[in-house]
């Protein structure tokens, strides 16, 4: 059980780091959705079933859907989230 908890907590840290370093916005939100789901399993390991049901319904359900709908409304589904690509594009345009 402890080894299982170690693996889950390590997965949480890896998810959180990869959310910051991913290039596309859509990928970050998908990784955030899985982060929420693993959090819900950790609540069960800590013997709180109320929190597990609520986090699964709210975190991996409603919050992620709201993020997707926001992206669709501002037409940014394929947009990149970092500035580096835009900077290199501007440099190329200037040359």
């Amino acid at each position, binding site marked *: 059980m402890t080894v299982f908890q170690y693996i889950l907590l390590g997965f949480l840290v890896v998810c959180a780091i990869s959310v910051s370093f991913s290039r596309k916005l859509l990928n970050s939100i998908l990784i955030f959705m899985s982060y929420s789901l693993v959090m819900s399993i950790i609540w069960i390991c800590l013997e709180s079933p*109320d929190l597990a*049901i*609520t986090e699964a*319904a709210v975190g991996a*359900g*409603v919050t992620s*859907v709201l993020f997707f*709908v*926001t992206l669709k409304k501002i037409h940014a589904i394929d947009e990149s989230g970092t500035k580096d690509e835009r900077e290199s594009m501007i440099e190329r345009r200037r040359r």
Partner: protein
Amino acid sequence: MSRMKSEEEYRKTKAFHFFRWLSGEKDPYIGNLEMRPQKEYMRAEDSILDRMRESQMVMDKVYDTRHNRWLLLFRRFYRIMAVIFCIMLAGLLLFTVSYLPPTGNASNPDNNEVASRYIESGMQETGAVNIVTGMILTYRAFDTFGETNVLFIATCCVMIMLMVEDAELKKQEVMNDRRFEPKNDAILQGTAMVLVPVIFIFGIYIILNGHLSPGGGFSGGATIGAGMILYASAFSFKDTQRFFDEKVYKIAKISALCVYGLIGIYYYVTGANGIENHIPLGIPGHIVSAGIIFPINICVGLEVACTMYAFYALFRRGGL
């Protein structure tokens, strides 16, 4: 319009004054609290060139790192200092964690007499088998009321920002929403037709069994809200508006909050004056037991479900 009285007589009655105030035709504060008329938001039909020039200027100023050494230095300085600050914060927090008492220890300072009182007399005083639900809806009902209030206020704020009232803009929003999507996708509609009744029944089960098993108002309400979101995205909003349009939404939300408030007031008045409140606690383990937890769970579940669906509908098409 009343048919029993004539027009002039009706205008003198209190009912006419009340309904006029309710619908907003007559403002009793005009002349006392005046708001300055807001500036109209200028549409950019004739300033497209202006905006292009502006965006070019912004790109030059923000990303121009060759001609602006100060910008480059400041950006590097900010990033390095932010990373150093984060590392120092992490070190400080981990240092504090190492001084905390070990997790899972039964003699921690926070497992004191409050927790044992809730566990030992919880079932007798509240009638609920689920100790956490009994605690947040009887001992700490005020906190839960505040949280329901927060949901209400959040929906009002999102409505202020995203709701579209103009009829023409409304039609444009609706058209923009479904124009580039495949309509009537077979897989999605088939799955939704099978899953949505199951989700609704499961959500209602979670709400009603809040005091007997894990669950309660929040989890059940979130599940029902998610089920409605699935139904609204598989079929069009016209199908959802058959049973859940703006009027139903207003009535459900306001009455849920008011009923919770009135129950709270009743408990405060009887508890503070030492009067006996005649709500039966029932036998623990039966579904109609635990006194007042059963109606409060239903109110909270209704509120949360309406909130989740309202967020989705306001984001997608600017109206319910």
